[in-house]
């Protein structure tokens, strides 16, 4: 196990209670999707894991030290004044990695994210999908053990989204990292995940955990199989259940 959330609750200054009684384990190396209705606290859970906010009650525990963590937002969240390479270098620069090494590692990360040849491009010269690839390259350049993703592909069109799904799975397999992936798409979670945690409406908590066994190598054809349909059906049913 990599980390666990125990009976976590979180309210905001506005009085909104985002999470109540959230208990969730994240195993090392798994691809865990958090699925739930809008405003159910999925993103809040992600920010708690990242340590960007602290819980009001309960605890976020890590097995061992807090792992090197990457974060990908719904928006690409790039620095518009910096080219793709400099953006991808961010974590390395902040950690004081020597410039030459940082550039080499960032260039490699960009290539792995499918952006070889776009190192010098500025964000505004890139499409939405390509900007998201820079954002992913920035996250994997620091070789994170844990990658947190907050509806990263929600704003993309379907072909870009499916291409990014497949490329993300490749990165996940190659790097052996743990991914916690927030989405509101049943089909996306069914395609990507080894496990899905279904959230209740606000205040959010996990109402059902669904383990999936997708084939290690999957492509578009997997979306047409009965196994995929069954997985999507289980997630969908859990979402609709009124506990």
């Amino acid at each position: 196990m990599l980390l666990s959330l125990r009976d976590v609750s979180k309210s905001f200054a506005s009085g909104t209670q985002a999470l109540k009684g959230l208990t969730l384990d994240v195993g090392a190396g798994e691809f865990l999707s958090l699925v739930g209705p809008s405003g159910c606290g999925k993103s809040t859970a992600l920010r708690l894991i990242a340590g960007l906010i602290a819980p009001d009650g309960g605890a976020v525990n890590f097995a061992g030290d807090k792992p090197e963590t990457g974060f990908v937002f719904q928006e690409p969240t790039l620095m518009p004044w910096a080219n793709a390479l400099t953006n991808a270098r961010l974590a390395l620069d902040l950690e004081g990695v020597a410039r030459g090494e940082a550039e080499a590692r960032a260039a490699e990360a960009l290539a792995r994210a499918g952006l070889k040849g776009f190192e010098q491009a500025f964000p505004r010269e890139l499409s939405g999908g390509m900007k998201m690839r820079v954002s992913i390259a920035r996250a994997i350049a620091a070789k994170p053990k844990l990658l947190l993703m907050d509806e990263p592909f929600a704003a993309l069109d379907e072909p870009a989204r499916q291409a990014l799904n497949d490329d993300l799975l490749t990165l996940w397999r190659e790097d052996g990292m743990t991914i916690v992936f927030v989405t509101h798409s049943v089909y996306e979670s069914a395609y990507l995940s080894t496990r899905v945690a279904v959230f209740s409406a606000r205040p959010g908590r996990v109402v059902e955990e669904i383990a999936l066994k997708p084939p290690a190598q999957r492509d578009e054809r997997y979306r047409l199989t009965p196994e995929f349909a069954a997985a999507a059906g289980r997630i969908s049913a859990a979402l609709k259940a009124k506990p």
Partner: protein
Amino acid sequence: MKAALKYLLPFALGVAVLAAWQITVRALDVPVYLVPAPSDIARAFADNFPSLMASLWATLQVTLIAFVLATAGGVGLAVIFSQSRMVENTLYPYAVALQVTPVVAIAPLILIWVGYDRIELALILIAFLVSFFPILSNTTLGLKSADHNLIDLFKLYGASRWQILVRLQLPSALPYLLGAMKIAGGLALIGAVVAEFVAGSGTATGLAWRIIEAGNRLEIAKMFACLALLAALGIAIFAALSALEYALLHKWHESALKKQG
């Protein structure tokens, strides 16, 4: 063709207006002490060239020094504001009070305090006061406009406050700062001229003083020559700052993108 027209049309208008002015003044025989013809102004300019250039240099010096100080001071104070909410809340009302008080009203006081023997310092101080506030308020806004998710990401990667300031907040504030500099550059010139008008006499040697002097002597053509120089100076400052803005922003900022499109 379109690009050529963009520059040709304003130029042609200027020539046409000057020609019409020249012809009208000559045809109606308007006395030169009321409305001088462009040719009279050109002659006044040529006759007084050394003294006008010296005055231009004096005004330029005051304007530039005040502008540089206002930019440095405005950015510096904005950075301090961005680091401490308490300092911002304490000082900002006074910065606003200083801004909304008409500088012409404070100018005599400053002149008395600084002294007519150090008139240049007084002029710089007044021009500084006029141009300082837009830099402060815009840079403060710009520093706050950094993407909050990016700030979170910087924190996640263990960035120090210094790293967040230098690598994220200052670049985010740059478009705001450059916009404010274009305003402040013009204001510094206005401040320098107004200050000299208030000083009225003494050791001031800038273009504003030349205008007062020429007015007292009814040398209207020379007044026009001074006005033309002031306008040219204002345009040059604006053009230089626009060029700086383009150089720093055109690769990445949306404002430059639209011009290309």
